[in-house]
Every structure is written in C-alpha cells, then in structure tokens.
C-alpha cells in the first residue's frame, strides 16, 4: 500500500509540474484529490478521532503492573505469549533516572543514599527530588528546543545573530522547571503578545515565548520581499503543525494535501493569520527581525536620552570639550541602568485575508479565503476570527484546547519517545498518513486523557511514566524476546541506548569535576542584525557550562556535538537518530574537551585518593565498585604507561569513552 501511494503521489507531482503551463490539468488534479482524499482519510482517522477513555485490558499477571498504563503494555506482551523483562536493579535505575531527567549521571554519594533508602516509595521520592532540581529543566528544555528548531543565529543565506533568542531558550528551561501547564506553554509560544498581563513581569514572560515563531531559518537576502514574507509564514506554519499537531501543513501551499486532511484553502485560511503577523521589521535586503522592547518605562526613557546624547556626541560639528562633557553625562546616565529588555518575537500587522496561490505562486492568485482554522480540525465548528487582530490567539487557544484530540496525543507521545527512546507513534513529528501508526493506540489515548486531566502537567506525566513497571524493566532481556521484537515495539524491555550529544559532553565535564552549573544568559557577543563570528565557536565549546547554553550557530555547528547526532537546528525534530560512527571515536580520542577533562579528572583523583587511584576512578565514573580484575588492569596500565599523572589522564579517557559510561540502561 505504501508503495502504491508513493507511486500515485509521484504521478500527481508530475501532473502538477505540467499543470503550471496547462490550466486544464489543475481541474483534473482537484478531481484526483477528491478521489484520493476519502480513500486515504482512513489512514489518519485515528489521529483526529476524539480521545477515548479506554477500559483497562484484561491481563493474566496484573500483579506486575504498577500504574494503569502498564495494563496496556502488558496486554500487548501477553498477546504474543511473552513476558515483560525483570526489573532493573536499583543501581541501574538511579543512573537511568538521573540521565533521563537531568542529562547527568548521579554522584557516588547520591547512588549510595538511594541504595540505602529502603522505604517502599524510595523510587517515587527520587523522581520527585529530581523533578525539583533546575537540572531537570535544562535537560528537558533541550528536547523541546529540537522541536522548536532553536538557534542563536539565522543560518540560511545570511547568518545574522538572534541576539535575544537566548531569552526564549531560558524561558523554555523555566517553563519545564515550573511545570507550566502545557496548554499555557503553547498559547504563549504562538500568541504571548496578545494575552492580558497584569504587570511587566508577566508581559515579559509571555512575550518571550514568541521566540518559537521567530527563531526559524529565513532567507534574509531575498530580492523579492513578497516571496520572503510568504516563505517565512510557510516555515512558521509548518513548524507549528509539526510541533503541536504532528502534521505537515507545508504541502498544502501548492495543492490539496494528498495524504493529510488539509486543503489548499485551509492552508491559505491559516496563512491569513500569519500574514497578519509581522516577523521582520523590514523585508528588504538584508532583512531585520522584530524585537519587542519591554524595558521598564523609566529605564526606557533614560535609554532614549542616552541614545540622543550619543547621537549628538557622534556629530562632526560637536566641539571636543562638548563631546567630553557628553561622554561624562552618558556615563552618569548609564550607571546602574539595566540593559534594555529586548525580546525577539512576532507582533501584529494589519489584518488581511489571503487569496489562494495557485501552485504556491503568489503571482497567480485564486479565490480569497477568510482567515480561519481548518474546518476538518474543528469538526466543522467555526473558530471566530477577530476583525482587528490576526487571529493568532484564537488559533493558539484552539490548538491548546482539550477539544482538539491531536495536541494532547502528540505531546504525550513526544514525552514517551524521550523517555523510552521510541514513540507509541514511532514518528512523533508526523501523525499523518505517511507517518507510522501507533503500536498501542489505547495506551496513547489513556495517557492523553490523563495528561489533560492533570491540567496539562508535564511533570505529572514524568511521574506516571517513570513509576510504571514498564519503565523499570531491565535492558537485559531474554534472547527469544529480542529476536522476536528487535525494535522493542512491545516495550517489553528497557531499550539500552547511547546518551545524546549534550549528555555526552555534560557528563564528561561533570565527572571531570569541571562542570559550571551557572544558569541562563547569553554567551554571544553581537549586535542585533549583525553577522556572527564563527571563529568564536571553538572558544564557546571550551566553556565548561552545560551544552544547552552554548550558542547554536546554524551556519556552523560544533564538530564534536554534531558527530553525536545533534538535530539540525534548521528543522523541527522530535526524534533524533542515534548513529555510531568513527567521528565520535575521534572526538573522544583527540578533542581538546576530552584532553582537558581527562587531565582534570586525573588531578581530581590525585586530590581525593592516595592509593589505588584507578579503582577510585572506576567507582567515580561508573558509579559502582570495580571488580578485582578491573582494578588490577588499571594498576598495570598506569604503572606501565610512564608518568603517573599522564597515565591517570589516559585511564580517565578510557573510562569516559567507554560503553558503560556512554550508554543509558
């Protein structure tokens, strides 16, 4: 079936290609669309259906379960005559929980405290404790930043800095840490500027969320400003669709979507909302981003004065002594004056409805479509559009409403994917006809319902998923099960996997005793709308702060980080790949980060242990006692290597590059 559909699509693409020149084909295509549409509809019905409240399935070994969700997983396993895998040991579990929730391994003392905690709810307490730590937000924000294709520079043709994008990144971290209800999080990211605010603090917080729409990649040196505006709108709609609804909207720019239920009219109805929204302050070469100035009024006045005086100071005709006086005045004014609070984000534009662009070309226009949310999404209920506002707020509220079955399903599936390494819908960014279907549709609905009931609390979903028996399984499964289900579609075991790029770097820094836990702010030193200096990349990468705080340059990534499969910051991605390539080994063998860290770890062990240093280091890095054999090998290695410090550094490199350290299980 899949192949058939692809052939059909290719055929249609070909016809469309010719239809540019031959008008009559356009009509044939819309007919084809009608023919295919209902047929393919069935493929995606499950995603658009109302969320059910499925009954718990009957299972034989109910005492295995810990949470209701376990019944759905267990039923699937039992149906195939297999058993779930035995629970992981406490030592394995605490490491899993730390890596999963904090993106950092636990310390020896944290491990020991947990092992000696014999209270029956020790695991639940551990999860609560981890969720309270700011390290949690830094870790889970990174997942969302992949989806939001976050970057500190534009990339594409002109790699201009996003000087205030970091506020959005910090906002995401804050939102996860505060367990901001996810529906609220959605609305702020799409329409934070349109929400009522009781004071400046709230106004700032909501407006910062708009970074989501603004940080996308754009062609900034486009000689055709109309094309540029439409391309930006298209990118925003497409990212929004993927991020919140798991659907590809972009295809409908040129033709009725052949697989997902969105027509070209739906597209331009939505586009009207975004065309009534301003992202750039100018759309001519080279374009500039819009920023909200949310400086306190009194400070804003002072800054205006500063700018005025600076202008005067720069004038040629101003005499020298006047200039000196001005400089003094400026210094005095600036003293104690907080920097302007600028926020990268979209704003309102005069409202407009858009005409259908035939074949996506704005030079050949069809009928005008009123702004609106596609009827198919709302089961025919009309979402009223305000006359004097873009309609972003109405769209955002509709996306974030419990009446919309897609949104809750998409986000709980994302959370599941980030915990378990594989989504219930294996294609988290695509719930459409070309995505894969859920392996456990009832489980998905069960979770989506729980999520909405919890008030869209992400932390409550972490508790639920991690408390489950499913989560606590060991990775060491029966061979027969692994052979039957190599991809772990049944979730009948823990999927051992390499930790992500950021976790690799942060864990190495942490074990080397180098990790700087300073939070927030920007390491970029640039002016608004100015080019970034890529020469700074190496310098940034050497700063031992958590990787989430390193500026993301779209035109040039960190070689070491890229080798470990960071997502391309130009495209929304909630399902990173995990590859194993020689470039990763080279990074661990030869990078400056690794050398500095292994040296630091050698110094650390020397300061901490006076004898059997290799054994101490094994315990410190792996979080377990070394075997006799391992200690012996360590000692032999260090003794035969030469200089002890260099030897310990080499030994540190071995441990920090090992599979035991780099895999979460």
């Amino acid at each position, binding site marked *: 079936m*899949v*192949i058939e559909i*692809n052939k059909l699509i290719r055929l249609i693409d070909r016809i469309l*290609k010719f239809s540019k020149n031959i008008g009559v084909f356009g009509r044939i295509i819309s007919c084809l669309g009608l023919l295919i549409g209902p047929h393919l509809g069935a493929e995606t019905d499950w995603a658009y259906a109302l969320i059910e409240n499925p009954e718990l399935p009957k299972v034989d070994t109910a005492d295995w379960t810990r949470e209701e969700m376990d019944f759905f997983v267990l039923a699937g396993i039992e149906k195939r005559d297999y058993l779930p895998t035995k629970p992981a040991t406490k030592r394995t579990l605490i490491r899993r929980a730390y890596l999963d929730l904090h993106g950092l391994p636990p310390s020896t003392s944290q491990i020991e405290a947990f092992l000696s905690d014999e209270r029956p709810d020790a695991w639940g307490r551990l999860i609560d404790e981890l969720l309270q730590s700011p390290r949690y937000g830094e870790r889970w924000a990174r997942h969302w930043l992949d989806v939001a294709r976050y970057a500190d520079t534009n*990339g*594409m*043709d002109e*790699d201009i800095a996003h000087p205030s994008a970091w506020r959005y990144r910090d906002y995401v971290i804050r939102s996860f840490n505060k367990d901001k209800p996810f529906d609220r999080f959605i609305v702020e990211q799409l329409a934070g500027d349109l929400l009522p605010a009781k004071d400046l603090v709230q106004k700032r917080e909501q407006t910062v969320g708009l970074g989501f729409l603004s940080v996308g990649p754009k062609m900034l*040196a486009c*000689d055709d400003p109309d094309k540029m505006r439409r391309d930006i709108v298209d990118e925003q709609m497409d990212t929004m669709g*993927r991020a919140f609804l798991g659907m*590809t909207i972009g*295809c409908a720019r040129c033709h009725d979507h052949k697989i*997902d239920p969105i027509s070209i009219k739906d597209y331009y109805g939505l586009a009207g909302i975004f065309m009534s929204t301003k992202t750039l302050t100018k759309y001519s070469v080279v374009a500039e981003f819009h920023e909200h100035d949310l400086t306190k009024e009194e400070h804003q006045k002072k800054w205006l004065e500063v700018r005025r005086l600076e202008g005067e100071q720069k004038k040629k005709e101003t005499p020298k002594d006047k200039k000196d006086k001005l400089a003094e005045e400026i210094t005095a004014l600036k003293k104690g004056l907080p920097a302007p609070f600028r926020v990268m984000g979209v704003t309102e534009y005069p409202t407009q409805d858009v005409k259908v662009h035939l074949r996506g070309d704005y030079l050949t226009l069809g009928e005008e479509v009123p702004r609106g949310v596609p009827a198919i999404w709302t089961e025919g209920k009309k979402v009223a559009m305000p006359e004097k506002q873009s309609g972003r707020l109405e769209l955002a509220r509709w996306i974030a409403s419990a009446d919309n079955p897609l949104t809750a399903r998409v986000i709980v599936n994302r959370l599941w994917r980030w915990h378990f390494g594989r989504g219930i819908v294996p*294609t988290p*960014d695509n719930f459409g*006809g*070309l995505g*894969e279907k859920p392996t456990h549709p009832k489980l998905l609905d069960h979770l989506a319902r729980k999520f909405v009931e919890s008030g869209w609390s992400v932390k409550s979903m972490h508790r639920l998923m991690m408390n489950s028996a499913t989560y606590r399984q060991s990775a*060491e499964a029966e*061979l027969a099960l692994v052979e039957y289900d190599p*991809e772990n579609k049944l979730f009948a075991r823990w999927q*051992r996997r390499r930790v992500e790029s950021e976790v690799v770097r942060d864990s190495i820094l942490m074990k080397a005793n180098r990790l700087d836990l300073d939070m927030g702010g920007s390491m970029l030193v640039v002016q608004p709308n100015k*080019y970034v200096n*890529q020469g700074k990349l*190496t310098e940034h990468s050497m700063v031992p702060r958590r990787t989430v705080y390193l500026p993301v*340059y*779209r*035109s*040039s990534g960190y*070689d*070491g980080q890229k*080798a470990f*499969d*960071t*997502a*391309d910051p*130009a*495209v*929304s991605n909630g*399902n990173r*790949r995990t*590859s*194993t390539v*020689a*470039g990763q*080994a080279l990074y661990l*063998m*030869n*990078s400056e980060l690794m050398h500095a860290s292994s040296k630091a770890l050698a110094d650390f062990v020397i300061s901490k242990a006076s004898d059997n240093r290799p054994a101490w280091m094994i315990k410190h890095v792996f979080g377990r006692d070394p075997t006799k054999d*391992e200690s012996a*090998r360590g000692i032999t290695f260090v003794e035969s290597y030469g200089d002890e410090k260099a030897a310990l550094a*080499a*030994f540190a490199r*071995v441990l920090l*590059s*090992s*599979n*035991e350290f780099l*895999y979460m299980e």
Partner: protein
Amino acid sequence: MNLCSHRAGLPLSRREMLQRSGTGFGAMALQAMLAREARGEAKAPLLPGTAKRVIFLFMHGGPSTVDLFDPKPLLARDNGKPFPLKVPRITSHKSKNLLLKSPWSCAQHGESGAQVSELLPHIASMADDLCFVRSMYGSNSRHGGALLELHTGSDTFTRPSMGSWINYGLGSENENLPGFITINPSGSHGGAGAWSSAFLPAKYSGTRIGGKSGGMKVPFIDNPLQNREKQRKELDLLASFNRDHLAQRGVDSELESRIASYELAFKMQMEVPGVQDVSSEPDYIKKLYGADVDPTKSFGEQCLMARRFSEAGVRFVQLSHRYWDSHGNLKKEHEKLSKEMDKPVAGLISDLKQRGLLDETLVLWGGEFGRTPTAQGNDGRDHNPHGFTMFMAGGGIKPGTVYGSTDDYGYYAEDKPVHFHDLHATILHLMGIDHEEFTYRYAGRDFRLTDVEGKVVHEILA
C-alpha cells in the same frame, strides 16, 4: 526524523538480522559489516553508473561567464546602449541596464570550437575534454539563496546537500575516509547548509577541512599529546573494558559496532593525514597544478589534495575558490582570480586523465550564478541567475561539447535551458541513480534532491 524509512517495507534491518542471528555469524563477516556500517554502507546503484566520484570546483561569488565562455558580438557592438530585452522582475541591484562589452577576447578552441577567454589559456587547451553547458539557470538572485539552490536544490528550505545525497545513495568507497569532504568552504551565504545532511542521517554530512574555524584538517584527526604507541595501549584497555561490558550483556550489535568504531577511527588517523599530504607529490605534478608557485600555489595545492582524496575513494570532494563577485573592479578582479584558478583546474583534469581516473570521476566547474551583460558602474556586473555557463569533464560526460545557449546578449538561457534541478538529475544519473526514485522519507514526505522537478540532460552524456 523517520528512521531509515526508505526500507519501511522490510521487516528487519541488517543490524536487526545480525542481532537475531546471534552468535551464528562468522567473526570476520561481523567485523567487516560493523566497520562498513560504522562508516557508511555502500548501497547498490539502481542503474549502471559511469561516474563513481565527483569533484566539484565551486566558484563562489559568481564568475562572469559571459566574459569567460559565452562571448556575444552584439554586446561589443551595442556597448553602452540600453539592454533591449525585458529586464527580470527581480534584480539584486538597481541598474540603468546599459550593456557592457567584455574587456577580454574569446577564441575558439579544440575540435569542438568551444569559446574560451584569453584569461584561461590552460582551460582552453583542454577544450576537447570539456563539456560546456551555456544555458544554465537558477531561481535566486542573491548569493545565499543561489548557493543553497545549487548545492541542495532549494533556496527556500533547509535540504540535504547533493554530496550528502550521493553518499547516502552510494555509501563509502573507503571506510577509512569520510565520504564527502569540502575543502575551505565559505562560512557565509548558507555556511554549513551547503554541506549539511539536513534530515538525512548526520553521517552523510560533509566533513569540512579548512574554512573559517579550524586548520586544514579533518576534525579531531590527530592527537598532539600522545604518541601512537601510547594511544594504542589506551585503546586496547578501552576495548577490554568494552568487551567485558558486552559479555555481561549478551548480544548487542550496537555495542559491538561502537567497539569497532574505535578501530576504524584509529585507522582513519593513520590514513587521512597521508592522503591529505600533498608534499609527497613529485615536482612535475606540483608544477602541473601550479602548486609550486604563486599565485596558483594555494588553489593548486587544494586541487592536488582533491585528486588525492578522490583517488583514495572519497565520493564527493568540493573545493571553493573565491570571490568572483565583481560588482566593480571587474577587470582587475577577474584577471587575478582567473590566474589563480586556470592552471590548477586544467592541471587537475589532465592529471586525472593521465591516471585513467577521469572516466570515472565527474569534474564540475561553476558558480552559484553568472553575471549580467549589463554594467554596474563602468567596470562591474551584477548577479545573473538567468543564464550562465558551467562546465563538466569526465565521469561519462560527452567530451568536447558545447550545449545550449543564451540570448544574443547573454542574459537569459534561451536554447535548451538547464536548471540546477536538471544538473542534479544529470549528476545522479551519471552516478547510476534515478533521481525520481531516489527518495528519503522525512516528516511525512518522500523528499528528492530534485524535488518534483529535474530532467536528465541526455544530450551531454557520452
């Protein structure tokens, strides 16, 4: 991202097969497969291809091909007069659109009678090995957009680079080397977008050598702090820890694969610097490329390096020569740039030929656009994506060919126009890949290098 959904129809991947077959596999076969997987598995081409490798000589900035390869008598005749045809709706700069005759002369060369400027005597002498496409066109009048369109097929969205596509399709020829190397690329006008794998797996991304940040080296390829013997000792200890770890866990091909990846990295360390080192080349070869003296030394060495990488099995090698953006000072700038580029490029092609490599290596020369036949100031030309020349050699291209033409003034591709999509379709065809069948599923769509466009230019195939 959808994981390898190109094989969605198959029940098991090779890796999963291996995992299922447990320990039944022969140790040698296992190692070989892991090593291949760690570096990029070669996939069988769909068609018999003529080219195995590509060397792309990218002329950043947009060389004025109306001066270099596409002379127009009317331009000389009507010098200073307004351009009589319609000017494009979109141009990058405002202009009075007065015609500017070429400061140089062109002459016919070889049996094909291809026109080549006096600025490029060495390339001219190779005319019968080259195929000039004089009717190239793109859709974007700015560097960044045009550059991305040339490299990825899209000037609107982030898409994989053609080098990534080719590596994804064909895999590596030499597991000890990256499959896609870009030497000294520009960090601006798209930057990494020009060699990025976008939604394709990261391992198909280009490896940058040189460029703004970092020396002329594969990242992390050497270790100044440690001699090889000590590093070997360290890797042996690492392998012993990793093997113990694996033994406690039974079968896991991913863990095994990672163990193998260190061995591969160790071999790469030995091989890459050697391949890259042009100093070992004999003097007569260095002379051939102009790698011995200025002003050809720098680009000559890069061309020589490209040949060495290509010869060693790197699928796609790209060089960047810049900066051809002569809005003003055309005469001086183009003379200087031509001098730097001419001999190395001709040297590369003749060297490939004498080694018998040209037949299987496609060499592509060109910029992101050409330049207008109209003037900017009195000594400059603006960007022109509407009609310009690129040339190719080897790899199954018909030698001694001049294909297509622009209008009488050299502004628009007129006869047999070739869009970047068509160029991509043709390159893939030469590599044995059908551009319409070659897809990757990402976020609900099967993407192609050529999107929904592209026609193979059969007339230029040998």
